[in-house]
C-alpha cells in the first residue's frame, strides 16, 4: 500500500487523490498530505534512518513522494551546533542552532521544500516549474530546476533590487518582472497557476512542498540523540515552517521513534511584519493582515497562508510568540556571528532576537534544552548590517605602524 493515503482538507476533512491540487473544492480550505502511518510503521526504524543518505532524504518514508528522490539529493542534514558561547551569554544550559545557512545548494532552508516539490512535480509529469518570490525561494527553485533540466519561471515584482534579480538570473530561468507591486504579482501568479499546467511550487504543489520543512524536526530529534528538545524557536513568514516542525515532531512520536514530545514551539517575527505574533499576544485565534515594513524581507508576508495554523500549533504545544525591532534583528545577527561564528540572514537575527526575549521573560528556562532554527545565510542580506559592523583598522604598510596601532611590544606581547 502507498505511504501517501490522500490529500485532505485541513478544514472540512474531505479527501482527494494525491495530484497537483491545493484547495478543497467543497470549502476552499487548504489541502495537506495524509499518510498511511500504519503502513509506514511496519518498516521505519531509527536504524533504517541512520543507515540512509546523509541528506534530508534519509526520512523519505515520511516525505510525500512515491519513488526515489530525483531532485535536490544533497539538501538537508545540516549541522546541529552546540552553541556554548551563546548559551553562556543568554544564561542557558543547553542551546543548539540548527544551521541551515549551509544548506545545499542555495544556503537556505528553502532547499528542503524545493527538493520535495520538484521531485514530486516530476513524478506528476510536470516539465515546467515556477514560483513567485523575492528571495530565497526563487534562488532555490532556479538552482534545482537548472540541475534537474526543468523549465523554470520565476515571477518577481518590477521594483526588486538588482542584486536579488542577479541571484536568480545566474541559473538562467525565465525571470519575469511584473509591472506592479507585490500584490499584483501575488494575484497574477495565483491566476497563472489556475490556468497553466505548471508546477507552481508554493501554489498547486504546496501540499507536497510544505512537507519538506518537517525534515528540520526529524533532524533535530535524531541529532539530539533521538530526543525532542524542550523548546524550539522558529522564524515565521507564512507560518508553514512552524506548523510542519510541530507536525514532524508528532509524527516521530506517533511512530514510536521518540518516546515523548514535550516541545514548546515558539514563533518569531519582526515588528514590521508580525501578523501572527501580534494575534498571539492579543489572544486572538485569527490574524489581521499587515503591510510589511521590515529589513527581515524573507519573513515579510503580510497575509500569511498558514498564520491561523501556526497560532493553533503554538497553542497546542504551549509555545509562545514574540517580535523584535529591526535594530534588535541586527543585534541578533551580530550576536550570533560574534559568539558562534555563524553569519545568518535577517531571519536568523529575528530568531536570535526573539530567543533572547523569551529567555529574558523566563518563558524559556535555563535548564530547557533549546533549539533555534537559523534558516538562511547572511551573505544574502549583507545590506542589513553594512552600517552596523564598523570599519577596518587602517595602518601604514610598516611594522612600526602595525605595532603602534595595536600597542604591541616585541614578540607580539601587549604593550602598556
Amino acid at each position, binding site marked *: 500500500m502507498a505511504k501517501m493515503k490522500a490529500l485532505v482538507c485541513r478544514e472540512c476533512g474531505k479527501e482527494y487523490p494525491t495530484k497537483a491540487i491545493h484547495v478543497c473544492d467543497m470549502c*476552499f480550505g487548504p489541502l495537506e498530505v495524509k499518510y498511511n502511518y500504519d503502513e509506514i510503521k511496519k518498516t521505519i526504524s531509527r536504524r533504517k534512518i541512520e543507515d540512509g543518505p546523509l541528506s534530508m532524504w534519509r526520512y523519505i518514508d515520511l516525505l510525500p513522494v512515491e519513488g526515489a528522490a530525483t531532485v535536490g539529493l544533497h539538501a538537508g542534514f545540516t549541522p546541529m551546533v552546540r552553541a556554548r558561547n551563546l548559551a553562556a551569554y543568554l544564561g542557558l544550559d543547553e542551546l543548539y542552532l540548527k544551521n541551515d545557512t549551509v544548506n545545499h545548494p542555495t544556503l537556505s532552508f528553502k532547499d528542503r521544500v524545493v527538493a520535495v516539490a520538484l521531485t514530486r512535480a516530476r513524478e506528476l509529469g510536470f516539465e515546467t516549474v515556477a*514560483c513567485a518570490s523575492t528571495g*530565497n525561494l526563487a534562488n532555490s527553485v532556479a538552482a534545482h530546476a537548472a540541475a534537474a533540466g526543468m523549465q523554470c519561471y520565476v515571477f518577481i*515584482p518590477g521594483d526588486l533590487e538588482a542584486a536579488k534579480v542577479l541571484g536568480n538570473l545566474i541559473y538562467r530561468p525565465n525571470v519575469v518582472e511584473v509591472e506592479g507591486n507585490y500584490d499584483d504579482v501575488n494575484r497574477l501568479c495565483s491566476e497563472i497557476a489556475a490556468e497553466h499546467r505548471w508546477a507552481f511550487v508554493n501554489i498547486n504543489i504546496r501540499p507536497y512542498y510544505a512537507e519538506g520543512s518537517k525534515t528540520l524536526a526529524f533532524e533535530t530529534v535524531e541529532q539530539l540523540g533521538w530526543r525532542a528538545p524542550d523548546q524550539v524557536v522558529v522564524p515565521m513568514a507564512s507560518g508553514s515552517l512552524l506548523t510542519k516542525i510541530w507536525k514532524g515532531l508528532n509524527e516521530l512520536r506517533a511512530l514510536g521513534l521518540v518516546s515523548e514530545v514535550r516541545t514548546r514551539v515558539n514563533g518569531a517575527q519582526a515588528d514590521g511584519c508580525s501578523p501572527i505574533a501580534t494575534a498571539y499576544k492579543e489572544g486572538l485565534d485569527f490574524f489581521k493582515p499587515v503591510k510589511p515594513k521590515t529589513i527581515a524581507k524573507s519573513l515579510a508576508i503580510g*497575509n500569511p*497562508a498558514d498564520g491561523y495554523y501556526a497560532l493553533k500549533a503554538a497553542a497546542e504545544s504551549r509555545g509562545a510568540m514574540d517580535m523584535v525591532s529591526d535594530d534588535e534583528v541586527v543585534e541578533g545577527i551580530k550576536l550570533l556571528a560574534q559568539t558562534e561564528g555563524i553569519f545568518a540572514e535577517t531571519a536568523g537575527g529575528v530568531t536570535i532576537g526573539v530567543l533572547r526575549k523569551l529567555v529574558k521573560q523566563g518563558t524559556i528556562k535555563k535548564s530547557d534544552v533549546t533549539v533555534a532554527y537559523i534558516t538562511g545565510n547572511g551573505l544574502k542580506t549583507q545590506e542589513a548590517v553594512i552600517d552596523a559592523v564598523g570599519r577596518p583598522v587602517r595602518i601604514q604598510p610598516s611594522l612600526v605602524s602595525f605595532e603602534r596601532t595595536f600597542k604591541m611590544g616585541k614578540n607580539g606581547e601587549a604593550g602598556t
Partner: protein
Amino acid sequence: MPSLRFHIRFPESKIKEPIIYQIGHEYKVVTNVRRADVRETTGWMDVELSGDTAEIERAVEGLRKKGVLVDPIELNVVE
C-alpha cells in the same frame, strides 16, 4: 464559464454593508460564498466569482474600491 477564488477580508467599518450582494448587481459575475467567519469587529469570506475573466477583474477592483481587502484564495504566495 471562468471562475476565480478569492479571500475577502472586511474591516470593522464595512462589516454591516451588503458588499457581496452589491457586487453581484453592479458587475456581471456570479458570487458564491463557500466559507466565512463574520464577527463584530472583523470578518472574512472565501468566495468564488464566475463570469467573463475581464469582468471578474473589474469586480475585484470594485470590491477594493468599496474598502475590502481582496487576496487570492492562497493568500500571499510571494515568498
